[in-house]
């Protein structure tokens, strides 16, 4: 059995969380609130120590950003910071509208950069991978055919401008089956993930805390 107070605390909090499986109780609530609070506090400290100080405060105090030396470097540090500070105007009713400017900058740059790349990656490249030449020279071609037919049937299921009857209805039914198989696969992976997390905790309790297993 471990004599490390940290391990005992972790074991106690693990059991507090597991106690929710029986029913909601103060121990669970305590552990839950502690987790949320510590995560927020830890995040703030990391933001300040690992990001804000080395990227902004340190170069500013030295009067130089090494990537772009001179006045331009300082400007490139201060200007974005000033835009960021404008977000805090949300706290004043009178000046709240000023926060729209930094939000506009963030949205504008983000959207402009993201839309072409997202279209390229999530639609064009996926379409290219779906419509591949099928020569029936290998078993892999059967898989490619199944993907192409599956995509078509799945899309037909979501086409509501024509009644799902006849061949069209049959393809829509095939589409819903394919979707269900996809959901089943995702659910199976989810169960596996959750059981993995349980296993991780049980191994911790039995190995690190109780020392039952080696």
């Amino acid at each position, binding site marked *: 059995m471990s004599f490390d107070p940290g391990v005992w605390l972790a074991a106690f909090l693990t059991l507090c969380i597991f106690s929710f499986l029986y029913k909601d109780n103060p121990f669970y609530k305590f552990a839950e609130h502690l987790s949320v609070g510590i995560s927020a506090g830890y995040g703030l400290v990391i933001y300040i120590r690992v*990001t804000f100080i080395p990227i902004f405060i340190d170069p500013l105090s030295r009067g130089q950003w090494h990537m772009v030396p001179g006045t331009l470097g300082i400007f490139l540090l201060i200007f974005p910071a000033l835009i960021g500070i404008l977000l805090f105007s949300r706290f004043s009713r009178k000046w709240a509208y000023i926060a729209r400017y930094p939000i506009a900058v963030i949205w504008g740059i983000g959207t402009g950069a993201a839309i072409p790349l997202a279209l390229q990656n999530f639609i064009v490249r996926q379409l290219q991978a779906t419509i591949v030449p099928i020569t029936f020279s290998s078993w892999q071609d059967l898989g490619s055919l199944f993907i192409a037919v599956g995509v078509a049937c799945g899309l037909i299921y979501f086409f509501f401008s024509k009644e799902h009857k006849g061949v069209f209805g049959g393809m829509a039914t095939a589409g819903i089956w394919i979707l269900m198989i996809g959901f089943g696969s995702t659910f199976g*992976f989810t169960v596996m993930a959750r059981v993995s997390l349980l296993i991780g905790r049980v191994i911790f309790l039995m190995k690190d805390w109780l020392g039952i297993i080696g």
Partner: protein
Amino acid sequence: MGFFERLTKIDRRIVFLIIMLSVILPLLLRVDFPITVTKEVQNVYDLVDELPAGSTILLPCEYAPDTMAELEPMLFAILRHCWSKDINIIAGLFYHTGVTLVEQEILYMAEKMNAEYGKDYVFLGYRPYPAVVIMSMGQNFRQSFPTDLYGTPLDDIPMMQGIKNYANIDLVLTINATSGVDQWIIWGRERYGFPFAIGVTAVMAADYYQYLNSGQVIGIIGGLKGAAEYEDLVNYKDMATMGMSIQSFAHIVIVLFIIIGNVGYFVTRKKKGPRL
């Protein structure tokens, strides 16, 4: 209440208890199930294995304690593989609650494998806004990470000499429990064209198989199962292999519960007659 109706109304706490026992018992009895290596994990292994000594892998680790049960064994197996082949590692992350965790894990493995900081690996630390950081790293790593986590300028670190951007990296392999994978695909892989592989939680794995098919991702290590496969490939059976044997047993119990629930449901529905 009849037998079959009882089957549909088993108290959830009994289900939880039996699942818990199905995890504890195989752990105590050391039940061993075989592990089959899948093509997507083999791809990642082959890619790393074929790299010559002195190559550099960028290893963004984006996870926190809530998913460490799945991703920690994966990280250990990959680090073991890389350092046994003298492949250098640049680790970093865009997920703030995992900084200390990932740092401790890398230090633990470095000690085990006698890897030297600054020579065999570098830990860049954390930066927010992955999209911006991923793009800026395409220009120069030093834009977003002028120093490593410990405040040492990258130019003063021997391993970072000659490494400017993705052009100097042989593989980007992210171990990820966040939507960061999408960011890497959009802002990194497509823009800069580096070889890209992922290690993700099992929940996420199904969503990324499409990128494997399109060639945007070279390989996927999915969840504890993927980690166990990688352990098998590096010939060092560790926590993931142990976990997967337990998992197989737990899955059998879950499948039994699904069958029991469905039998109860269909029999009682037949007795009650068709639904209106």
